[in-house]
């Protein structure tokens, strides 16, 4: 059932141990490519982060959660599509610039084929309510995956008032108020990093 288990078995299973990103057990480019193809064909409707989290952090333990979360934020504030940027981040983290290229190709190439196929079939199928219904079904799985990934990483956040507050402020500002994401992050990130640096020293 779990076709990926043999990959994660090769790597120590401690949740926050330094992982495969450096040292002897380097991730092969082929494994990286295959992993991102799998993610690329699953990631419907804005749920890419959740599937990358599941594949890269949970199943294969290639990245720690904090490393991944830093990537999520960086991928969003820099120019470029989020799925592409996050693929670049993970690939580059594991295998340098070439890894970034391989991961991005894996993410995008099959998705392009599906988009073109859907484009060719669209005229024929878009008229059917069934198509619409099935797409909503797939989107709910993506939403469920996003909520599950969010719940998992939220549970592991440090339980300090300031940290919870910053997470909530980000959610309310971007999600509820629909403020532009970049300014919100550019205000909150320095504050949050400052607080983290201070608590490390003290």
């Amino acid at each position: 059932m779990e076709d990926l288990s043999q990959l994660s078995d090769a790597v120590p299973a401690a949740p926050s141990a330094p992982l495969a990103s450096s040292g002897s057990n380097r991730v092969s480019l082929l494994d990286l490519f295959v992993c991102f193809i799998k993610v690329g064909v699953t990631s419907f409707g804005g749920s890419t982060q959740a599937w990358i989290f599941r594949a890269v952090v949970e199943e294969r333990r290639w990245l720690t959660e904090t490393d991944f979360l830093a990537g999520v934020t960086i991928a969003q504030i820099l120019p470029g599509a989020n799925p592409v940027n996050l693929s670049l981040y993970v690939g580059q983290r594991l295998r340098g610039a070439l890894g970034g290229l391989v991961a991005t190709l894996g993410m995008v190439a099959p998705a392009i084929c599906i988009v073109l196929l859907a484009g060719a079939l669209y005229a024929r199928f878009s008229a059917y309510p069934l198509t619409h219904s099935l797409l909503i079904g797939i989107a709910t799985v993506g939403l469920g995956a996003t909520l599950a990934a969010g719940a998992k990483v939220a549970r592991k956040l440090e339980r300090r008032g300031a940290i919870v507050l910053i997470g909530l402020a980000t959610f309310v500002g971007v999600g509820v108020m629909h403020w532009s994401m970049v300014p919100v992050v550019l205000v909150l990130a320095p504050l949050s990093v400052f607080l983290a640096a201070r608590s490390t020293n003290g």
Partner: protein
Amino acid sequence: MDNLFLRLILVFAPLSALSIGGGQAIIADIQHQTVDVYHWFSNQEFADMFAISRATPGPNTLIASLIGWHLGGLAGMLVATLAMYIPSSLMFVAATSLWHRNEKSRWRVAIERGLAPIAVGLIFAGALTILQALHMGLLGWTTTIAAMAVLYYTKVNPYLVIAAVLVVYLAFFFLGL
């Protein structure tokens, strides 16, 4: 044809570099350029392509690939896709290479810890955005929560979850519920 390729590059490459915050930020500009400026598509055609790029996996900006395909076949698709992704990707790799090189430094640890709660906030904000776009009924809520629970508590293959949900939606559709 060279002219078309050049125009595709002129449309997508600058938008790529400006696409801060991802695809949503530039979709309106892509529409403006391809519909109003170059008259490649009608508004309806653009809306259809946008719907396709949203309904399929991968980034929304794959609409560039569709546009390139419609205008110039395989070569047009490749030119548009590369113009869409190369500028932002080069900027991203350049901006993050310093980050990747300083694995153990103290400032990096502080930045990682500081960015964690923001990333969590962004993930839930993304979930809320999807939720608002879906206009779900009872069935939608049920499968969302079921998928969340399964993905949270088990290591089941995601394709199985998607397949199971598709079966449920097929059943409900044909039973007329």
